[in-house]
């Protein structure tokens, strides 16, 4: 090892960072090398200077300034959270308003629309039960009452009431729908029954009633 290599060992040994085995080797070299001895002495002096920095008093004004800056920084960082809380609250209010408005303005579509929007697959699904429902499914009093005029009309003008099925027959999905259809057809002949009710004519009003059976369509002629 050269003196240059021993300098590094001296630099560690001066603060006790050198392992014993290497320290012993260095000790032997120092006994023989005056240059390294001198370097070790000078290194101890510079180390004393370095370590004296630890005793250097901190500038109190500097410390206070840092502390104030940190506290201000913490306060500033808390501000956005408060702002975010406000934004969150505002957003929640807006969402609630939109939901309220949607619920208030929303009008559920009536059964007639269901009937009008009926599609072939609905017919297929209901087809097996349709003939039975046509006569028997009118179990409730409401349904019976609703269809009473139809039966009467059928008796009065059977040849006119029963016609061949239209190409795109309209029918109710359920018996309840049909009852609603009939009920509405009485109250709103010109409103939601636009598709079923023929345009009013000066002399005669014709009401078209749809049954579960797509082959049976009842027309009610009113004077």
């Amino acid at each position: 090892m050269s003196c240059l290599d021993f300098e590094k060992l001296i630099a560690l040994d001066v603060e006790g960072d050198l392992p014993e085995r290497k320290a012993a080797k260095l000790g032997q070299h120092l006994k023989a090398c005056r240059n390294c001895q001198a370097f070790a002495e000078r290194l101890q002096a510079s180390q004393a200077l370095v370590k004296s920095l630890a005793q250097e008093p901190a500038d109190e004004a500097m410390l206070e300034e840092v502390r104030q800056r940190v506290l201000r920084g913490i306060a500033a960082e808390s501000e956005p959270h408060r702002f975010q809380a406000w934004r969150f609250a505002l957003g929640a209010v807006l969402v609630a308003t939109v939901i309220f408005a949607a619920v208030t303005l929303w009008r559920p579509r009536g059964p007639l629309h269901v009937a009008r929007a009926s599609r072939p697959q609905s017919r297929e699904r209901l087809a097996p039960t349709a003939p039975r429902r046509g006569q028997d499914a009118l179990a409730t009093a409401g349904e019976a009452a609703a269809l009473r005029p139809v039966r009467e009309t059928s008796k009065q003008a059977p040849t006119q009431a029963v016609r061949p099925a239209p190409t795109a027959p309209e029918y109710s999905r359920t018996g309840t729908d049909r009852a609603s259809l009939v009920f509405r057809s009485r109250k709103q002949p010109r409103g939601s029954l636009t598709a079923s009710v023929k345009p009013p004519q000066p002399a005669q009003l014709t009401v078209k009633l749809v049954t579960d059976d797509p082959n049976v369509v009842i027309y009610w002629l009113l004077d």
Partner: protein
Amino acid sequence: MESDELALRMTGSAPEVEGSGSVEEQILKRALAGDRVAFDRIILRYERQVLMTAWRLLGRREEAQDAAQEVFLRLYRYRHHFDERRPLLPWLYRMTVNVCHDLHRKRRQDDALAAGEVDQAKLAYDPAGEITRSEQRRIIQAALKTLTEKERAAIVLRDIEGLATKDVAGILGSSETTVRSQISTARVKIRKFVDTLERKRS
């Protein structure tokens, strides 16, 4: 509580409170829970170590203040992730080194070397022929600037802050062997810097 705080600041260690851990632990716990007053006490307790370490690492007062501020702000930001059972000081040292590294990277690297040369020229002028204590410190401060960033961090933590080599290795995320090598190189460099200065004087 006042006397506890005084004890904290003077001795650096907190008195034990029977059955409830040290006062320092309690203050740290409260500070990490968001108590501003407790956090203020934590700053009071550790600001000297953080600021002076940053000053040694950066060599500039204003930057050291910026670094110290950032270290405590990071502690506040990440307080929920801090394990209160672990000692705070090593974490603060590690954060100080990291923040100073970031600041150092932002500053152009040749700046530090140039500053060291300027200081050396200034220090070489000594009309009285004697080196005062404050001047000695300036010499060492200038010598620190001639070190690499890692060497400087190792020597500041080991020799100035007085930490054990093992702790320095833990803070810097290096092996003890690496830290020993950095310390050794740094001490030799400092000695040679002072030798050069003395030769100029004579």
